[in-house]
């Protein structure tokens, strides 16, 4: 407990517990992302050969298992955090949700002007990019 942080550490603002939590999150997240990638490949490889029906729908939804695992990892990470960190993470996520809702609304209106419909799969990356940008901004602001 005395030597909380060694001098060589680049990030002096993290306690060992926080580092451990972050490491655990990284492991869980990359595990989930790996699973997602594999399931997506499987789904994409076989979806065209499957006749329409429940089997095709199930195969199409297969990568969702990886997606949900990623969310579970994120929620577990948030629950392990201290109150202060959780607060700005939650705030960033709320802003990301709002900005995504506004941006997708604008995209939807552009469809009326002839823009093609974008796949719903782009909502997730959009949310995560806005979330990441908010998080960086808030971290700089509140430190």
């Amino acid at each position, binding site marked *: 407990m005395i030597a909380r942080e060694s001098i060589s550490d680049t990030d002096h603002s993290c306690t060992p517990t926080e580092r451990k939590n972050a490491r655990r999150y990284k492991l869980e997240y990359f595990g989930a992302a790996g699973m997602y990638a594999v399931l997506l490949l499987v789904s994409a490889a076989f979806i065209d050969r499957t006749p329409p029906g429940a089997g095709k729908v199930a195969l199409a939804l297969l990568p969702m298992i990886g*997606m949900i695992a990623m969310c579970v990892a994120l929620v577990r990470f948030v629950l392990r955090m201290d109150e202060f960190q959780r607060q700005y993470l939650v705030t960033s996520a*709320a802003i990301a949700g709002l900005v995504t809702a506004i941006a997708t*609304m604008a995209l939807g*209106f*552009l469809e*009326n*002007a002839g823009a093609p419909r974008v796949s*719903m799969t782009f909502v997730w990356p959009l*949310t995560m990019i806005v979330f990441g940008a908010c998080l960086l901004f808030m971290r700089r602001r509140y430190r």
Partner: protein
Amino acid sequence: MIAQPSPPNVEPKYTPTEAKLFRRYRNECIAAAAVYVGLLFVSVRFVDRLSAGPAKVALALLPMLGVIAFAIAMLRFLSHIDEFQRQTILTAAAIAGLITAIVTMALGFLENAGVPRISMTFVWPLTFVIFGVCLPFVRRRYH
């Protein structure tokens, strides 16, 4: 098509200041919704008559003024309520953002199984419906 977040339940235990804030928020929401509906009507009615170009894009995006007014009303409300209530709302919004991202991802994968693409304008209502469902749960957990 008017996706309105469920206004906070006005319970008798609120202070007069809070009641005033809720009232103001409600009025601003109604005004923003009216602007949105008016502009949407104008946009949808005339967008087909314009030839492709910046004017058409601008006309298609016109209802966004109402959407943004709506978001501003929400942020104004959030910045005036007390810390505890804000935390409740932000948590519900963060959960709504995450669930929306998951649901839209599933919808996107269903496109691979032959389900037609739906308009991006549905993301906003989806987010706010989920937000409205989450809010009572989060509130109950915090109280």
